[in-house]
Structure formats: C-alpha cells, structure tokens
C-alpha cells in the first residue's frame, strides 16, 4: 500500500458526539496514575472553580484518536494501521475538559511527507462542544513505516 499524497489539506467533518462522563474521567485518571482530587471528587473540582470533574491534560486523546480513525480507516488514504508509529503529540487547551461536556472533533490533515518508503502524516483535531465552544486543539504525527522499514 502507498500513502495517497493528495491527503494533505483534506478535512473530515465532526462525527459522533463524545459525552464526557465522570466515571470515564476517573478511569482515565487512574490509568495514567493521576492523583489530583479534581479528577475524582466533585467538591474538590468545584473548589478550584470548575463546573465538574476535570479531565487530565491528555484525556482529549480519546476524542482525537476517534477523529483520526476516520482517516486511518479511509480506504482512499492507503494507511496500513499495523505499520503506524506515533511520532509526536500536542494538546492545546482552550479550556479544561470537564464531565458533562458533549464534544465533537473536526479532523484536518495538515501535512503528508514521504519518509523513506513510508510517510509522516500530521493531523489536527479541533475539539469543541456541540454548542460551539472551542475546548482543545490536538496535533499528532504518525509515521507509517514503509515495507523496508
């Protein structure tokens, strides 16, 4: 399989709504060994001025990777998922994600560069609430290894 060079500049519209739940925040926080009470205890979160439990800084990866799946699973993209390596990741938070948020993500393919026999693909997910409030911008580069790499 070869990567379609015309992917660059392509966008995928917001897909299914992701409803941020309290138990998912607690589960994700435990899984990254986060201990701050604002992830677990509503009163502690409110004491810091938050509406509800606060998601850890990397929680948005759940929503971003669902958006990325639209590209990776697109037969037209030519990406072999078993040859994908995560190269870099960035989260810019416009505001913290909290329990009760209803999130959608619009995916943009910002860059496609040939690398050896494979390609480096940089995507950006613009995450907002269904009401249109921007919450996070995530960027991610994946290296799709060529057959000889």
């Amino acid at each position, binding site marked *: 399989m070869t990567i379609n060079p015309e992917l660059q500049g392509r966008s995928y519209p917001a897909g299914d709504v992701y409803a941020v739940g309290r138990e998912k925040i607690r589960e994700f926080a435990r899984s990254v*060994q986060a201990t701050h009470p604002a992830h677990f205890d509503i009163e502690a979160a409110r004491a810091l001025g938050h509406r509800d439990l606060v998601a850890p*800084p990397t929680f948005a990866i759940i929503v971003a990777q669902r958006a990325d799946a639209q590209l990776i699973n697109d037969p037209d993209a030519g990406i072999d998922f078993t040859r994908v390596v995560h*190269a870099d990741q960035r989260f810019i938070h416009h505001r913290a994600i909290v329990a009760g948020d209803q999130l959608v993500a619009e995916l943009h393919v910002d860059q496609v560069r040939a690398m050896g026999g494979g390609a480096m693909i940089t995507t950006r997910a613009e995450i907002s609430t269904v009401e249109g409030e921007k919450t996070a911008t995530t960027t991610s580069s994946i290296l799709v290894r060529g057959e000889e790499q």
Partner: protein
Amino acid sequence: MAITLAALTVGQDIGSTTVDVTRLGLVQYAGASGDFNPIHWNEAFARGVDLPGVIAHGMFTMGAAVQLVIDWIGDPAAVIDYQTRFTRPVTVEDTTAQPGTPGAVIEVSGVVGAVDADNATARIDLTVSFGGQKVLVKAQAVVRVW
C-alpha cells in the same frame, strides 16, 4: 503554598518522580483510552513486528509524566499546552507472577524552561527516561500561573 510567577526562574528544579509500569497497567490504559493495539499487551504480536517485547503506549508515558507538573502547580487545568516527541519505546517485562514488582520504571524530572510574564505562563521542560535513555524528547508543558 501557591506558586507565583515572580518566584520562578529559568532553570529552577520542580522536582522528580518515578512511574512504575506493569503489564496490568498497560491493559488498564488500553481500556481507559480505547487504544487496543496488541503491541501494548501481547508479547508474541509485539515480537512479530520486531519490537523487543510488549511496549508502553507513548500516550501512557506522556500522560503519566505530566503528573509531576500537576502536583507542582496544584491544578490539572493549569496545563494549557503539552507536547512531546516519542523517540524510544519503554519495554515492559511480564511481572504478573510477582505482584507489586514493576515491569519497567520511568524516571521523570522537570525544570522551568521559560517564564512569560505577559501571558502569566511558565514552560516546564520534562526529562523522561527509561533505562538511562530519554523516551520523550521536547516534552514541554506550559502552565498558567495564577
């Protein structure tokens, strides 16, 4: 003990910690994140794609490393920008038969990399290593300092 911008200087140490990783922990992270790539839980599959063994999710390491910053600043929402490059895998030994024994230990330390008085932010530069070698490069967290 609130941290103030005026008290921060570039190069200042924010502390260090270690993260114990187990195979069970990776399964937990897989479930929590939805990333079920078998290289993170299936030894035979990992070796079959030329990895040295089961490796931690890069996003697990990134997510766990930032806890040092959160503990220091005191509010997870203060982290407004966080980025890294993933350079080396963290291989996690199977210690299932020895409960309490980590399969890998990741070392995390941080220093103040920059202070931006106009925006009331500070950049924390993290050093994240496993087996004496850096696994994250350019791991930087920008925090809002109230």
